[in-house]
């Protein structure tokens, strides 16, 4: 790095004999600390599932299993029905993602490019919902889902109880609208002269240009629904249809699960998110950084 992008401590200070030693020591210590603190617990979870329940609970603990029991993962998948809950969660996440995209892209497109009367009032109302703490709306939202006004239907224990409230995502609409705003209107006007309808403008011009922002919105939508706990806990109480998070919490409370099986369940539940992170690390961390700088 050149001195142009220097930070708190200058390159020269770090190179000098003394500075170099301190730098090496701090770097090494931090690396060890990070491995122990952030990777360590995950290692313990994945490897712990291979141990017997007794070995997993013993003091002093063992770093590696004395005997490997990979079948614990299969037991968890089948006997604890982790497989079923994973499928449930994937179904809720993908369905929710699709509905969020359809609803929020259409709304953001209307607000950005079609600009109807009272459009800014609608946008203001949507953004105002960012101010509403989710927790404070939990009880009335639950009752609303139990009996949806106007339609009078009960969505409890159906995927729609997750999907429809999830589509009311002001953050998505804000991010999408801001991106659509940057697409020049001339581009749409010239296509519009050729007689392309509103939908075709969206589908053939706006969406192909919006791939990066669609990717970010999609990743965060999937992560969000995979991590959600309290809302599915309330609206999906039927054990058959529960998400993996809620099912793990319920299984832990029954006390009929051995510790190694539970570790296997926790590890399996984490795999999709860790894989997602490994693939999209850059998008996720940069998306977060951009959020920090722009607010």
């Amino acid at each position, binding site marked *: 790095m050149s001195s142009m992008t220097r930070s708190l401590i200058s390159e020269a200070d770090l190179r000098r004999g003394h500075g170099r030693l301190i730098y090496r020591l701090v770097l090494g210590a931090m690396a060890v600390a990070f491995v122990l603190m952030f990777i360590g617990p995950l290692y313990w979870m994945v490897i712990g599932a291979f141990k017997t329940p007794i070995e997993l609970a013993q003091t002093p603990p063992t770093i590696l299993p004395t005997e490997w029991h990979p079948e614990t993962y299969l037991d968890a998948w089948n006997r604890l029905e982790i497989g079923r809950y994973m499928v449930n969660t994937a179904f809720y996440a993908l369905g929710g993602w699709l509905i969020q995209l359809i609803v929020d892209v259409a709304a953001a497109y209307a607000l950005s490019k079609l600009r109807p009367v009272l459009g800014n009032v609608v946008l203001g109302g949507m953004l105002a919902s960012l101010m509403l*703490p989710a927790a404070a709306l939990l009880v009335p939202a639950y009752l609303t889902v139990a009996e949806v006004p106007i339609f009078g239907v009960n969505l409890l224990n159906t995927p729609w109880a997750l999907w429809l409230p999830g589509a009311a995502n002001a953050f998505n609409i804000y991010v999408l609208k801001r991106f659509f705003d940057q697409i020049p209107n001339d581009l749409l006007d010239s296509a519009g002269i050729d007689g392309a309808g509103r939908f075709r403008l969206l589908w053939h011009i706006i969406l192909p240009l919006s791939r990066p922002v669609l990717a970010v919105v999609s990743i965060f939508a999937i992560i969000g629904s995979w991590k959600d706990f309290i809302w599915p806990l309330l609206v999906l109480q039927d054990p058959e249809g529960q998400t993996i998070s809620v099912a793990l919490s319920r299984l832990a409370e029954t006390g009929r699960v051995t510790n190694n099986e539970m570790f296997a369940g926790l590890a399996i539940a984490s795999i999709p998110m860790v894989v997602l992170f490994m693939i999209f690390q850059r998008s996720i961390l940069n998306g977060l950084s951009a959020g920090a*700088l722009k607010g």
Partner: protein
Amino acid sequence: MTVIAPETTAAVTRGTGRDGGPGGPGSARMARLRRKIGDNVQAYIFLAAGLLCFGLFSWWPLVKGIILSFQQDNFVTDPIWVGFDNYQAVLDDPLFATAWLNTLEFTGLALLFGFAVPFVLALVINEFRHAKGFFRFAVYLPVMLPPIVSVLLWQYFYDPGTGLFNAILSGVGLPTSDWTQSPKMAMISLVLVSTWANMGGATIMYLAGLAGIPGELYEAAELDGASVWQRIRHVTIPQMRFIMLVLLLLQIVATMQVFIEPYQLTGATNPETITVMILIYRYAFTVNNDFGMAAAMSVLLFIVLGAFSALYLRLTRKAD
């Protein structure tokens, strides 16, 4: 930010004028009007699903929550208006003060760890010329996990008899603890797992902020003979003030809604760790299915958090 840009309005009017069609000025105006109505109808067709979702699941619950807090509703007969009875009942509940104090304790401790530690970590990582990617990856890894995974995993670590933490502590000759089962350590245990699971986000955001500080500022400070500590105080912190304030507000709002840690680790009935959200959950879903009291408590929480949220939005939107 919702102001319609003048050039777009002009473009729309131009568009309608173009197809105004032949005929007198009256019919042209009619055609333009019809066109305008058509445009609006089309726009609202695109907006319809969004409006419905927001209306039903965001705006209506807000209204419903306020209504509910003034009603007694058994969901069989018609609800009865009870004025401020629900609020009175909530205030008279001996757990009211406990829940708020516990929540404040959690938020306070969470800020102590979760606000300062990520800043220091980011400050150090930002100086590294190697392995920055690894540090960013590692610190954010727990944030990716489903929260219940972190909490359940730590529940095993905290186990006083068979847990990893006591095994390590006794291994190095330190006193062990009952962690979540000890009245003194229960809240701290919740804060520790919550901080572990969440501090990656703040660290990444601080790193983004630090990367944006112009190097000339440090250069100039160093030429003036400022020590490292002085540079942090007079360059880094003033430059980071905005991000720090935003993250502070975000963390206050997030930690005051704490639920999953006390729900799973210490249970909804443990007086040491009953938080506001746990109490709302108990009112509505466990003890007496009293949605009126739950709604009243929610409105109180809403008022407190709404103030912080409004401040946060004001700050960030202004910077836009």
